[in-house]
């Protein structure tokens, strides 16, 4: 798994490439938490390059959704592939996470 971060105004776009599993999920949490610690609490996780996630990835997302919301922000998902979206659906995550078709719409969903 590789993670890249790009800032767009007050929003950090965290792009995740590869597979998120029990081995890589702690790195995902740490990349997202780094943004929160630095004061950026409006996060977009760009899943365009994420070809797989297990429940470990979902737990990482849940942890960081809670954390960003506690700080008045949110973690929103963009460009989630069909198979990965199914994992989110099977786990009831589409009702607690906001999922957008692309990064632009996810970024625009945050107040400027």
């Amino acid at each position, binding site marked *: 798994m590789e993670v890249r971060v790009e800032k767009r105004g007050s929003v950090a776009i965290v792009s995740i490439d590869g*597979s998120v599993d029990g081995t890589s999920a702690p790195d995902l949490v740490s990349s997202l938490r780094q943004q929160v610690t630095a004061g950026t609490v409006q996060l977009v996780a760009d899943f365009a390059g994420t070809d797989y996630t297990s429940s470990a990835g979902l737990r990482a997302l849940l942890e960081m959704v809670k954390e960003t919301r506690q700080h008045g922000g949110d973690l929103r998902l963009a460009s989630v592939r069909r198979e990965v979206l199914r994992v989110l659906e099977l786990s009831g995550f589409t009702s607690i996470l906001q999922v957008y078709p692309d990064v632009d719409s996810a970024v625009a969903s945050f107040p400027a």
Partner: protein
Amino acid sequence: MAAFRNFIEEACRRAGADESLCFDLKLAVDEAVSNLVVHGYEGQEPGPIKVSFALDGDEIVITIADHAAPFYPEHAPEPLLDVPASERRPGGLGWHLIKQIADRLEYETSPETGNRLTMIKKFVRRPPG
């Protein structure tokens, strides 16, 4: 974990299974093996985990054999799927996903031969082209 997923991916591909089915089986095996590593072998020396894949008629049969602490499916926590994020708890998702994916699950445990989880899933052939 990636090694087990790669094994399932390759076996699935060789069997000519549908890609979406391969994804689901990879996920189910990942969850089962992760549970063994995190819970089953917790507090003891990690032991062997053997995963096998077979096509039996129109069913895929995957077995996961181990010598970890026995697992009692009826005691596994059910995740609360209909509550807000603030009330969601992280546990139980792995077993929940396995149950969602498999058509049938069998679990046997014995002090002599260890544990064996069998997942059975209807075979769906990859569409041609």
